[in-house]
């Protein structure tokens, strides 16, 4: 019975989507779409070579703050469900020499890659979220290789809290300076330079640090509280 109703729902939704997609016109009736306006204005208004980051941090900066918050909410909820790790919980033995050396060797390269992606977010594809995920992986791989040396949760939650607040504070500075929350500050600079696009790289740095610390803390917490 349950299976049948699930099947009916799925088939119905599928048929509905087929009908809808067939009748879509992809014409974007109003103003030819917001997208074309942004493509035109972004380099002048915001000064990013990568248009996507101008949308993420300038035009829709509040959405990015919201996404950061969603991640924070999820991590907090997971922490609430998992509870505190017991100090006497049994730990896995360290992996063999090869794995540990490989993890140590990978660590600096992954940090550099993550930092590169975060800091060049306004120039090349990528940015805070992607770089943050790589940073988190960089911190998590050594934990997998040698579980006896766990992540320092105090440091990770400190970084996380401060980076999140830094994002909001930059937004509030813009509110006091220009009257609009999260307005781009510090001018646009020369498009394509590393130090350009005003306060956007700073915002991306905050996003990257927050996402990295958050995910690393989350993964480590999941790993530690294993039964």
């Amino acid at each position, binding site marked *: 019975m349950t299976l049948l109703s699930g099947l009916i729902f799925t088939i119905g939704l599928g048929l509905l989507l087929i009908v809808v997609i067939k009748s879509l016109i992809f014409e974007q009736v109003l103003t030819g779409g917001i997208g074309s306006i942004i493509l035109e204005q972004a380099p002048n208004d915001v000064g990013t070579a990568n248009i996507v980051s101008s949308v993420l941090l300038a035009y829709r900066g509040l959405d990015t703050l919201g996404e950061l918050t969603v991640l924070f909410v999820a991590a907090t909820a997971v922490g609430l469900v998992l509870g505190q790790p017991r100090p006497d919980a049994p730990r896995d033995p360290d992996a063999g020499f090869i794995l540990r050396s490989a993890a140590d060797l990978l660590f600096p390269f992954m940090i550099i890659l993550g930092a590169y*992606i975060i800091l060049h977010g306004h120039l090349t594809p990528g*940015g805070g979220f992607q770089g943050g995920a790589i940073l988190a992986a960089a911190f998590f791989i050594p934990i997998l290789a040698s579980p006896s040396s766990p992540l320092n949760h105090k440091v990770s939650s400190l970084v996380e809290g401060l980076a999140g607040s830094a994002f909001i504070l930059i937004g509030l500075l813009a509110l006091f300076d220009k009257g609009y929350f999260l307005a781009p500050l510090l001018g646009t600079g020369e498009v394509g330079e590393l130090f350009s696009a005003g306060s956007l790289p700073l915002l991306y740095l905050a996003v990257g640090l927050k996402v990295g610390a958050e995910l690393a803390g989350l993964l480590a917490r999941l790993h530690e509280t*294993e039964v």
Partner: protein
Amino acid sequence: MLFWIALISVVVMLSAAVAVLLLENYLAATAALSVVSLALSVLFIVLQAPDVALTEAAVGAGVSSVILAITLRRVGLWKIEGEK
């Protein structure tokens, strides 16, 4: 050329998605799930969305598979072999 890359990634994506449904071993299903994300990120590059592709590869194929795998281990469904 682009057409063939897109076609291959779509085929890989769909077959991996079906594999997720059919595989009995949860760990193997998780691996297949990350294959879906990886093929999707190739498709995003073909569609000229490198930002989205990077996100999909880092988050979809990377972090979320790791989270799933650790969760499987935590709830005791982590089995390398097919047997019980």
